[in-house]
């Protein structure tokens, strides 16, 4: 039996066939992307995972205990968000650990951690996209030198009124914003406490913060 080229019949490939192949390829790619995206979203908003991430980044202690809200791990950067267990949460802690001197674009993570979320409402375990600064009306702002992770760092302490979506009355609130760099890694921490004892609680929690 000969197997020369002349024995391979010419097959015409129709446009429909090409279109069908391309469609299936796009479909499979979409399925793959969706499955990864779905898993990413699932993992991001898994409370246990968020708390484990937060504990992995930093030692902290929130009075009455804490529960995770979300966590992300991207380009070597780890971001975790935890709340106190009361409802609405009186304490919110956003932590990020970013590798320094690495060829990864971590600027946006810094922006995200310093400017976002705090003061937003938690609804059905999901964060709304509203701008926190509108809800947290800062009345005083000062920078104090404090010891964080055995290093003296400038801590921005802001006081004001926090309006939570499910509360009609604004509450007194205190926000700590700080950054520390150790062992080629940068910790960015934002702590928000609200209620009558907001200042005390913020100070108590700050004392428990320890880089890992």
């Amino acid at each position, binding site marked *: *039996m*000969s*197997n*020369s*080229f*002349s*024995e*391979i*019949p010419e*097959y015409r*490939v129709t446009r429909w*066939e*090409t279109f*069908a*192949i391309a469609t*299936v*390829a796009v479909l*499979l*790619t979409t*399925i*793959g992307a969706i*499955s*990864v995206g779905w*898993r*990413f979203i699932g*993992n991001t908003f898994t409370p246990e*995972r968020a708390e*484990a*991430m937060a*504990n*992995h980044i930093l030692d902290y202690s929130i009075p009455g205990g804490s529960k995770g809200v979300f*966590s992300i*791990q991207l380009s*070597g950067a*780890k971001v*975790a968000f935890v709340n106190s267990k009361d409802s609405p949460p009186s304490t919110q802690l956003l932590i990020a650990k970013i590798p320094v001197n690495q060829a990864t674009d971590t600027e946006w993570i810094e922006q995200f951690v310093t400017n976002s979320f705090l003061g937003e409402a938690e609804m059905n375990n999901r964060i709304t996209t509203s701008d926190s600064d509108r809800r947290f009306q800062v009345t005083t702002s000062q920078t104090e030198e404090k010891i964080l992770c055995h290093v003296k760092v400038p801590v921005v302490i802001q006081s004001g009124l926090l309006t939570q979506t499910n509360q009609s009355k604004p509450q007194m609130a205190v926000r700590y914003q700080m950054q520390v760099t150790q062992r080629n890694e940068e910790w960015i921490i934002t702590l928000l406490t609200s209620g009558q004892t907001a200042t005390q609680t913020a100070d108590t929690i700050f004392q428990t913060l320890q880089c890992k």
Partner: protein
Amino acid sequence: MHDGTIPKENVALSLVGLSDQEVSARKAAGQINQAHLPSSRSYKQILRENLFTFINAVFLAISVVFVLLGRPSDSVFVAAVIFSGVLIGIVQEIWAKRKLDQIALLTRPQATVLRGGKTFSLDLSEIVLDDILLLKAGDQVLVDGEIVDTGRIEVDESLLTGESDLIPKSQGKSVYSGSFCVSGSAFYQAQKVGSETVAYQLTLGARAFRQVYTPLQQEINLLIRVLLLLACFLWILIAISFISRSQSINEVTQQAAVVAGLIPAGLLIAITIAYGIGSVRMLDRNVLIQQTNAVESLSNIDVLCLDKTGTLTTNEICLQQVEALALPETELRVVLGNYAASTTASNRTSEAILLACSGYTKSLLAEVPFSSDRKWSAIAFDDDLHSGTFVLGAPEVLAEKISLTTQQLDYIQQQAEQGLRVVLFAHSPQVISLEEEIVPQLPEKLTTWGILSFSDQLRASARETLQGFIEAGVVIKIISGDHPQTVAALAKQASFSDEIKVISGKTLAKMAPEQFAQAAVTHNVFGRITPEQKAQLVKSLRDAGHYVAMTGDGVNDVLSLKQANLGIAMESGSQATRSAADIVLLKDSFAALPQAFLEGQQIRNGIRDVLKLFLVRLSCIALLIFATAIVADSFPLMNKHSALVTLIGVGLPTTFIPLWAQPGTARSRQSLVRSMLHFYIPATITITFVALSVYLLYLVKALVDLPPDLELNQVDYGLPRTALVTILIFCELLLIPFLKPPKTVWIAAEPLSGDWRYSIVALLSGLVYLAILFISPWREFFELSPLSVLDTGFLGLIALEWCLIVRWTWRTRFFDRFLGINLRS
């Protein structure tokens, strides 16, 4: 064995040979011819050549490192993969060696030894120093010695000296083991036996294993060397990476092992198995393979040179007609009978004369035995009734001394055109003089006494056999020592060509080398060709780029057989011819040759198919190594993964491909390269792309699932690698139906095969892989991660989509057009 016959000349010389006591004394003194004659490679050589190779050393080193790292299963796996190949190679070669030894034993020359006045047929190991041995035409000189009787012989010492001229030898002259007696007979005394003789070199040169690579083997060797270079390059990169990135030794060893897997050891195993199977199959068809690659080599031939006497004809001739010229036919027949009965060097012609004309053995004054080079023989009777010299020879040779009438010339021409071999019987009143060392010359004053016409019987299967080769595109050429017209007539009888272009040795001898080379290509019937012209013709054809096979049976064919790409000998041929040949046709089964040709094509096509699959796998792995390093800064596979991909994806199916391969027409080298590129490039690029996409998808999944307490560089590659192994195996197995399409739906790169067995093997291999993937201990042994049914199904769908994509690229000739490959030219 006792023969009891003592040639008459030795009776005259009173040669008696050694006595039993003398033989015993020499045996006791160790003066015996017991040096082992190597008929093939030694066991030590086989082991050394299979074991001590660079690649084996690399695999062994990797294996040892795995043991030191406490990963014995990896170590065993590396060792098993490579050494199973080595083992198969050794077993195959030992099998071939034993076969060669067996053949050597079957064709081992028996010595005719004169002892105590009687001749004995003994094994050559029983020859002792000073033994008297008989040498006849076609015999091999077994020990070094000196001619001790009045017999005259002509010896072919070409295997010792390279000089193709026949050397006349007479009393007092030395003969050397390694040469062959071409004509005449004589006794010689053994002066050197055992290891002191040159028999070792003879056997090595004429019979022993000689490594001649076929074009396919050369291509594969080139590929292996290129891959070895690539592997060396990657090993250097791994070493640099080890130093600069402080990787663990385990990681580096795994990577080195995967890179080592780029060298296609399995391909060599597949080839070895294919050759082994071919040899066994051919043995059943009365074809003895003396060179392991001979069957595959046969499939490459485009010119087949046949020696008329041995191959086309039955080797039996009969005297058809006697045309008496100088005396009545009855008287002529008496003289002819006496001539044939008295010659000491009988041949087929003299035997045919003796059968037709009875005669008496008479004592001789002188004799010139027949040689194919000289083409005449002569006898001078020691008898007053038949005084002078009688010469029997080819008309064109005797024509130098005889003037033939136009009528006689027409008669000769007419007989030759009928396919008859014409010989002149002439007489000279002169008694031929035979001075030592001088090539015998025809006597003067020759008168033609008669014209003898002999007929050759065409073999029953000759016509069909030749037709089979012609249909396969093989050009047939007949190169014979007979008259050109006789050969041409036989060629017509065998209907081997529409256009018969005849040329004689004499015409060729007058040609310049360039004209000679041209004539070798343009003519297809060559008559009256001397042994060295035969060899020269074969060489010219090879120089013209042809792949030449030469068949032969006589000693005069040895040179041309060794000159050809493939030498084929008849079993009934001389010992020397069988020794020099790559293939021996047992029972002179010329009809088996087309079957061997088809078997060779089958082997070649099988190996090419295997080569395609191996090439795709190797290229995919190599590209993935580079691609994942660039895209994901990682190494795609572990040692066991790579072995699994090879074993399931290629190894298992390629075990069966050579078994079921079909014979097919040979393609030109250019066409072969285009065919390989047409299949290989789309398959490689698409598989690599799909596999890389799958790997990245599952790597992202692994990153998304990375436990919070782990860093990015601690990501578990288990799942991405498992997905990669799975998609690679799926795609490689799905490639098999494209290689051997069972239905038209799979036709894209190769023509319809209609054979479902390949696809079934692919399916079964896929099931074996799924079993490994889902049976926990097996999966753990191969260091695969659990893959859910959903994921496996998803990968299956991707593999099916890949099938559609690759079929689309083949059918639209997308890559062919891009690369400018014109498949139809």
